[in-house]
């Protein structure tokens, strides 16, 4: 593991306009290291998706900054994004709108491949830092055509000529992931990519996404409200509550020994298929948890 985090957020604050303004993210900091899979979990409205958009530059934070390999990631403005920053890619939540309905899926995956080539050319021209160059060399075994990508995600080469409406939600999410990964990102941010899918497809898509990301040497930030799926694939967990990080740690540690009362409630809310017919303990909307992070003694 290198000594520098790949992507790091420093004291990020995001406010949405309103009276009073809604503070969706309030002073969040964390690091993402090369090659790791991190799960960002929390209930709906806790600021996970906002954080994902800040990390990709789709939203400009009110204060704080996002660094990619120690350099500030510029927010996406009206101009196009320079190839320098296309190493951060994202998979979105809604399988219905994550692909352009009027373009063939092959052409959409080809966009990702073109992005990867452009970035490689850019890196060659600008003599990018060694770590990035190593990564590009490492991913030479990535599929080189949309057809190979479709086969990699369990579809057939002939599917390249079909439109998104011909695929199921799970297949579309796999295609969207293939498109993002075809750009050979160093960081893939997946914002609830499985929450709109049925239970049997969720684990399949999550596993496929993780294995593809690890094959390509990309770090994965998997955002979800479903701890039971994230637990299966993430190395580390970050728990968010009302715009704050309230707990972080190795997945098994957080799972088996949660420190923060909110994490305990979140774990308690997972239904157990033990046949006892018990309803999970649900945290009521009137329950307020402390916003301070529970720090694990090393």
């Amino acid at each position, binding site marked *: 593991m290198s000594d520098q985090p790949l992507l790091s957020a420093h004291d990020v604050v995001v406010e949405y306009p309103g009276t009073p303004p809604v503070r969706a993210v309030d002073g969040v900091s964390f690091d993402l290291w090369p090659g790791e899979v991190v799960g960002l979990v929390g209930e709906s409205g806790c600021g996970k998706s906002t954080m994902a958009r800040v990390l990709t530059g789709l939203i400009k934070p009110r204060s704080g900054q996002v660094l990619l390999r120690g350099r500030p990631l510029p927010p996406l403005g009206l101009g196009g994004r320079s190839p320098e920053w296309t190493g951060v890619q994202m998979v979105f939540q809604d399988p219905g709108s*994550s692909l352009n309905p009027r373009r063939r899926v092959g052409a959409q995956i080809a966009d990702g491949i073109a992005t990867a080539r*452009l970035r490689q050319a850019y890196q060659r021209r600008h003599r990018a830092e060694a770590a990035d160059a190593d990564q590009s060399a490492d991913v030479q075994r990535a599929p080189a055509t949309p057809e190979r990508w479709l086969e990699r995600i369990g579809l057939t080469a002939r599917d390249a000529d079909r439109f998104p409406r011909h695929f199921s939600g799970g297949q579309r999410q796999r295609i969207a992931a293939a498109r*993002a990964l075809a750009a050979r990102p160093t960081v893939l941010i997946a914002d609830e990519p499985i929450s709109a899918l049925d239970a049997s497809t969720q684990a399949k898509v999550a596993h496929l996404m993780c294995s593809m990301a690890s094959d390509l040497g990309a770090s994965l930030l998997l955002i979800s409200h479903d701890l039971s799926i994230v637990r299966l694939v993430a190395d580390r967990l970050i728990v968010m509550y009302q715009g704050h990080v309230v707990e972080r740690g190795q997945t098994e540690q957080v799972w088996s020994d949660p420190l923060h009362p909110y994490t305990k409630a979140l774990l308690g809310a997972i239904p157990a298929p033990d046949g006892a017919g018990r309803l999970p303990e649900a945290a009521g909307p009137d329950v307020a948890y402390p916003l301070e992070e529970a720090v694990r003694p090393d």
Partner: protein
Amino acid sequence: MSRPTTADLTAPRSLLGRPRRRRLWRAIPKAWRTPLGVAAGLIALGWLVIALIGPAIVPHDPLAQDLPRFQAPSRAAWLGTDELGRDVFSRVLAGARVTILLSLLLVLMSMLVGSLLGVVAGFFGRWVDEVIMRLTDLVMAFPTVILAMVTAAALGASLFNAVLAALVVSWPSYARVVRSMVLSLRSSEFVASGRLLGFSPAHSMRVDILPNVAGPTLVMASLDIGTAALLLSGLSFLGLGAKPPMPEWGSMVATAVQNFDRWWLGLFPGLAILTVVMAFNFLGDALRDHLDPGAERA
């Protein structure tokens, strides 16, 4: 002896031409296979042909005043003659060129002007959007026909000025609709994915936004052809469009109003306007059904 195949069984029927007719029927897109869709298509096609080759098929010169005045429909003059002894049938056929071709031109121009301004407003937002939208508010604040009349009167009565006046009042609806579509598309996930892949604004517009805007805009335009025909005829009816002796349906109806007891003077140009407006409206409906992404396609 082998069992007869389905092809053998149907072979004799092909002699009657039924499967061929069915093949032709199936060649028509599903959404168009309604009695109204087919009838509208045939009527619109008929009028378009007349508009294109009208001068070649008219039985009389539409400007020649060599027939008896106010002659009721007869074998010599199928739709009668007008107050100057001109053949009404020939004038109705010749009038198709003016009304239909100018309506198509008007719709095309308003679609281009309105869509361009709508795309610019929706994509760039901020003050650009404000300026363009306030301009549309300004135009839309006036009743369409009144504003078109005022504009045509100010420019001077001529067909060119009537088209210009109609253009002034008809572009804002395109600008509004296209702007709202661009706004919602701009924040959609596949557009964000494209931007993260490094699409420039122009590329994003061409690949992700315009193809998704084109369908609904074309439907709107096809529904607008009837309205445009009505508006242009209306301006001519008021004496602000075509000038005598040019054969034009609106001005022919205006003449008929002066001679109310000669029913054929107004009935036939009126029927021409009615069939054109209805045919293009039904055609627009069928096109909308055909292009609706939610509609099931065979």
